[in-house]
């Protein structure tokens, strides 16, 4: 396990007491623990422009999942490499050490590196990289609390941050997850549903995350963990795309609000009628 020599490490083999308790299992029933239907999203709160130092930033809450993203750039590439006509997008994803049930290390672990790569590849098709040659844009994402679908929230949040930074984009990216337990498809799962062992023995079980460019109808991120039949996998991807389409209006709304704040002439008090026109601009 990688350790940071500059920090005082905790005891090497400490364990959370939760390991010794019983895992809460979901009762068989039609509704989910929080009373949602299978294809319902949790309430989403999205706000752009939360970090004043950054060029752009965003904060998202999906149920209890909380993610913050800050975007810096376009700026000069730190270690000058070859000349490139295309800009570079860099992405870092970090879970706060207290974000999950088990305590995380300060050093980025493999899961975080993998998540960062998925988010990067989800954003890359959306950004007009040829508009800022020789420079790079950095996206830093911190998951403050993980209550399921953290990766999907990270994708949505990072895209909102990029748009808030004024980076030219072809489209925004919305992320959404589906948990497949046997026959059931649970949209936007919470952490209990992600970890539940229900359906583990069934033929179909797994977790699908999709990043969608909604107005171009292109899938920019797709990852599936678990075992699914081909038909179920296709169905799960379709459900995810539906979920992403549900998040799109929230993203649009958030960006309109943050743009209005930046431009005094567009103060909401003076122009109520132009809301319709603003939507297209984002």
């Amino acid at each position, binding site marked *: 396990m990688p350790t940071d020599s500059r920090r005082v490490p905790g005891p090497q083999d400490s*364990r959370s007491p939760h*390991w010794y308790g019983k895992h809460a299992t979901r009762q068989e029933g039609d509704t989910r623990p929080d009373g949602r239907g299978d294809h319902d999203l949790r309430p989403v709160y999205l706000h752009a422009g939360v970090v004043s130092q950054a060029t752009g930033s965003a904060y998202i809450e999906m149920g209890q999942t909380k993610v913050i993203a800050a975007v810096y750039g376009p700026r000069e590439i730190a270690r000058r490499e070859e000349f490139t006509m295309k800009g570079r997008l860099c992405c870092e994803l970090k879970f706060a050490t207290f974000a999950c049930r088990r305590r995380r290390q300060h050093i980025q672990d*493999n899961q975080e*590196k*993998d998540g960062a*790569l*998925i988010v990067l*590849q989800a954003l*890359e*098709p*959306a950004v007009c990289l040829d508009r800022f040659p020789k420079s790079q844009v950095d996206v830093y994402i911190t998951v403050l609390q993980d209550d399921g679908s953290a990766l999907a929230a990270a994708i949505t949040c990072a895209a909102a941050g990029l748009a808030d930074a004024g980076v030219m984009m072809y489209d925004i990216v919305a992320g959404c997850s589906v948990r497949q337990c046997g026959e059931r498809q649970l949209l936007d799962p919470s952490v209990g549903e992600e970890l539940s062992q229900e359906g*583990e023995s069934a*033929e179909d*079980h*797994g977790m*699908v995350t999709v990043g969608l*460019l909604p107005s*171009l*109808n*292109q*899938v*920019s*991120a*797709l*990852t*599936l*963990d*678990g*075992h*699914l*039949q*081909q038909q179920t*996998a*296709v169905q799960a*991807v*379709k459900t995810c*795309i539906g979920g992403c389409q549900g998040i799109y209006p929230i993203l649009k709304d958030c960006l309109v609000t943050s743009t209005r704040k930046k431009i005094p002439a567009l103060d909401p008090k003076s122009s109520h009628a132009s809301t319709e026109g603003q939507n297209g601009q984002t």
Partner: protein
Amino acid sequence: MSSTLGVLSDAERLFIVHGVQDDLRSDGRACEDYRHVQVETDVVSNTSGSARLRLGNTDILVGVKAEMGEPDPGRPKEGKLEFFVDCSANASPEFEGRGGEELAIEVSNALQRIFNSRSTLDLTALCIIPEGQCWVLYVDVLVLECGGNLFDAVSLAVKAALFNTRIPTVVVTADDEGQQEIELSDDPYDVKRLDVDNVPLIVTLSKIGHRHVVDASWEEELCSLARLTVGVTQKGTIAGLNKEGSGSLDPESIYEMIESGKKVGMVLNSRLKEALEKEENSKREKIGFLG
């Protein structure tokens, strides 16, 4: 990933894209054809299981070492699998030092993803004493040469090496005070093997132009902006899926790619099984690296 492997002129690119469109690739294959695969198991004597695989110019060596360790507290009755991928500088000068690290992480995450599910490999068979001792299988992948389609080649080699893995039998006895003691069998042939029937293989589908190809050579990888790595089991179940590359994909083409990935993966699985069983039953002399 592909940018590290060289550059391609526009004319070459166009040639490849047009070829793929007409279902005839530059080496004479159709879009869903694999290159010739050579696999040999039991090539490194210091391992519990090993395999060497050549797929076109891609050359992979996998060694599996079984050691004893403590199980994860969350899964006390299961053994562990650990993947380490090393892109040696042999494969490409870009991999020197820390250069290959990013690619190595990508590959080991892809392996992790397809082995994630419990139905893949019976990890409870690797348990020695619940909550005490279990077998930890270290799967070390060494990339000796990189000629395109690394993910598929690595997954084939890993499955072959796991097929070849032999874990010594241990007996747990309790002494008078109730202390458990582990005893290793003296007979070197007293071993158990892993059931690898459900282990998936990765099929990478690269989108080139409007079509997709399997088993892309490195030139073809340079022409492709988006790839889909699909884990497929022998029964045709999709076990792990990931989109890679800087491009995006149309939903319809994703569904098509999953379908052809499943088709190709099932054939690949049965061919590998055939080849491994044939190799084991024949008394052929080992070729090793001289072949």
